[in-house]
């Protein structure tokens, strides 16, 4: 197919992935034969496979979905097509056999997944060499192993996997197959708001890798009642022990009680509390224990290399345009999470009074994000050029996306008036399993990024965990859902149960955690 991007001929010889213990070297006998013919065949096969993957994942789907049967006109179908690995043909499933008979081409790439179909096995084969390329394409979008997300470099600079395997195996103990991090946490008396946040931390791969690779060694830490040590102990307990009963987060709790965080003094009561406040508390506390020790001032462009900043912090840029002289002011601030107001008829607050609050039966997360990070609003501001107060347009966009995006849906609105009680907004907000954040970044403002599939992929997030509040504003219960691999679990204090995607998506979320896809 002519539409496929031509690759410059590479002089490099491609190698088949080195044999791994516990894994066959090839996907099937036939792939084995293909790779053992000669170097030229191996080179062209791998090169061609990369090209096909690019055409599947980096271009408009129109190209790989258009099959050209040998005897008739091109046809574009919705269902999978098969791209021949040995020549530039794209075939429908029906024509695949014919093509094979005629040309003796035996390998085809499924246009939906990028998996390799072997005609002789009459089955998809998962060859380690091909599979590595495919996963890298889906993950980071590049075939090279060198390029990583910026943050990752710092984060895993001391990654022990770069050291010899021998060293690792002699210095570590293998955790039992039963230790999988799936345990409940006992409710120590109205502490479910802590449990849900702790569970979402425990099942956050970035934090898990940090703690399990001795990111914060509690044995070397001098600080009494250090919360990060308590986290370290908790990670160890969840991922190294075989216990299946609940966990008692006593050290977290006492660290929390002992902590002198003034900003969160309200939290330190035996009453039910806000999970979001606890999330902020924990994040700041862990930042102080692991980071540069500076207090993250809200609103400032504070950045630090601590695990919390590398996990959760992103940057927002708000652009204010003076309506009088057209002068533009940019302001950048870092954020720990995105707080999205849920407007409805009864809960109009602050500056936002847009007409969207017609009180629909439900809203979507993207609607809320659109409202905050695409639409602009009017405000008064003091323009330097005009040297006077002027009407201005202000627009906020995300300048840097975090690795783990936490979103708070403001279900608890506090009215301004003193006598007004706070109220909970129960409107369901639909949220996706997969979230594209590209439209909310300031890169999207630039040029036409609609067809930039690579950029879109680097802004794609997968849902990681959901915190749900059930009940009224002043009393209720928190539960959370977390994803481990492809399986969802519901955590209700000490109880862990399997959950369906529909349970998760049907929940009235309060906090959402999305993880960047290229990390997973």
């Amino acid at each position, binding site marked *: 197919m002519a539409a496929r991007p031509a690759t410059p001929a590479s002089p490099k010889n491609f190698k088949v992935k080195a044999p791994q213990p516990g894994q066959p070297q090839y996907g099937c006998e036939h792939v084995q034969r293909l790779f053992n013919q000669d170097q030229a065949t191996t080179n062209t096969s791998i090169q061609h496979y990369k090209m096909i993957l690019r055409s599947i994942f980096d271009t408009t789907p129109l190209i790989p979905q258009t099959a050209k049967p040998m005897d008739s006109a091109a046809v574009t179908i919705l269902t999978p097509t098969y791209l021949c690995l040995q020549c530039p043909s794209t075939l429908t499933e029906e024509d695949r056999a014919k093509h094979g008979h005629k040309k003796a081409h035996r390998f085809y790439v499924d246009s939906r997944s990028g998996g390799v179909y072997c005609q002789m096995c009459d089955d998809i084969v998962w060859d380690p060499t091909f599979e590595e390329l495919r996963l890298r394409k889906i993950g980071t979008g590049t075939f090279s192993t060198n390029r990583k997300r910026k943050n990752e470099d710092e984060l895993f600079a001391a990654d022990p996997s770069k050291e010899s395997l021998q060293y690792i195996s002699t210095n570590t103990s293998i955790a039992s197959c039963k230790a999988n991090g799936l345990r409940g946490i006992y409710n120590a*008396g109205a502490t479910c708001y802590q449990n849900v946040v702790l569970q979402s931390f425990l099942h956050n791969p970035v934090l898990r890798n940090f703690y399990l690779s001795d990111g914060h060694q509690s044995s070397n830490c001098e600080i009494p009642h250090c919360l990060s040590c308590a986290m370290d102990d908790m990670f160890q307990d969840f991922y190294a022990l075989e216990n299946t009963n609940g966990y008692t987060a006593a050290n977290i709790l006492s660290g929390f009680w002992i902590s002198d965080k003034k900003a969160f003094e*309200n939290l*330190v009561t035996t009453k039910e509390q806000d999970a979001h406040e606890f999330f902020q508390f924990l994040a700041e506390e862990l930042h102080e224990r692991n980071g540069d020790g500076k207090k993250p001032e809200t609103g400032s462009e504070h950045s630090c290399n601590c695990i919390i900043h590398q996990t959760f912090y992103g940057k927002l840029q708000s652009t204010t345009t003076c309506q009088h002289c057209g002068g533009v002011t940019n302001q950048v601030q870092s954020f720990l999470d995105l707080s999205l107001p849920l407007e409805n008829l009864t809960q109009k607050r602050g500056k936002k009074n847009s007409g969207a609050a017609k009180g629909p039966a439900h809203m979507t997360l993207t609607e809320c994000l659109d409202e905050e990070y695409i639409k602009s609003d009017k405000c008064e501001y003091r323009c330097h050029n005009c040297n006077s107060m002027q009407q201005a347009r202000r627009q906020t966009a995300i300048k840097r996306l975090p690795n783990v995006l936490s979103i708070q849906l403001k279900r608890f609105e506090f009215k301004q008036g003193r006598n007004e009680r706070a109220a909970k907004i129960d409107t369901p907000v639909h949220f996706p399993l997969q979230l594209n954040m590209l439209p909310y970044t300031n890169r999207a403002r630039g040029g036409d990024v609609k067809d930039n599939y690579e950029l879109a992929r680097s802004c794609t997030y997968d849902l990681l965990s959901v915190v749900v509040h059930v009940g009224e504003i002043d009393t209720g219960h928190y539960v959370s859902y977390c994803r481990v691999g492809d399986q969802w679990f519901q955590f209700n204090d000490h109880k862990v149960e399997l959950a369906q995607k529909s349970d998760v998506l049907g929940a009235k979320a309060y906090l959402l955690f999305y993880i960047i896809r290229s990390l997973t």
Partner: protein
Amino acid sequence: MSSETGETGKAGIIVAPEDANSVDKLAHSVLDDLLYNIVHDLLIKVHRDEKMARAATAAIKVEKLASDASESSTPDAKPDVRIETDAAIYEEGKVLLKGNPLKTTKEILCPRCHLPRLLHPTDGKGAKKQDLSIIYCKKHPYIEKPGYDIYGQTWVAPGPGRGKKKKDMEKKLDPDASPAPGEGGAKDRPPNVLSFPSATCSKCKRCILVTRLNNHMGSCIGNSGRNASRAAAQKISNGGSNGGSQNNDNTPPGSQKGTPLPASRAASPRKRDGDEFDEDGDDSDPNNPKRKKPKPNVLTKKVILKSKGQSQGPSNKKEKVKANSMLSMEQRVDDEDSKNSTVQVAPKKSTPKGTSPTKKLKLGLNSKPPLPSPASTKKGSKRERDQESESSGTLSSPPQ
């Protein structure tokens, strides 16, 4: 979209009615195609997981045979042998597949421990009986059963009114009384029914039932900042008394300080010694300083025991339950079962002896019937019951 070759799309499930117009038909066939794609994607995912697991199994098996055959004691060296099984060939350190692993290989070995994976849950939805003669990998399929968690565990309901301990104590004093209804009767409790553990307060080193821990810390630690209790008090008065429904604490945290219990709890040393001596057999081990390292064996054992527990009946469950309340310091390996199901929070320093909130109750009871040794209780069902109801009672009555 020119996929109108047939009556509908590829899945052939969503078919437009005969008299539908062409747009209708197109819509149906598009929807049908999309349905096909969903199924296709799902299938590819499952296929990948399953086929790769089976291929790895074939590889593990043949590698095992090769290393057995080579007789070389160095495990890392690649044995220079050629081994062939039905599913794979081992040659020059490489594993080559023979045929489709989905056909040649029936079981799945864990890539880490090389033991076979149990493929069906043992209980609940989709459960099948497991072959007890096979040692499976410890990673079991998760159980989906209402009222139980993914490991098939369930908990003793804290029950309403568990906070009021007076009634309980009366009950406990009468060994023949039927177990408190809220408890469901410790005696009848199968081994997968866990009760709530206790934990040690990091400040006062007292052992507190986990459900009371937050309140305890509020008074024990939190009162250093008066603001906390003030804020709480204020909240109570502001927010209406119906505020906290879950934590039945209408007492401001500070007031707990005044309760005499802690003092009375610390029974006289002599008494306690005696007590400890008696309980010798079933001490739990809160003294396990860093859970993460030293005791994995113990823990491992326990888990196995638990899973086998079904068949072993109530004997080991009793110990488990008991241990919750016991706090003597000796470490006994033969009672692993109790250890971690109960005392979760290991104090970093060894705690002062026996500050158990349960002590008081315990003494009261133990003084009545002659103290049975743990070994004998296993047999005598009556005594066993005594012990259990006692321990479960102490467990569920918070120290207030």
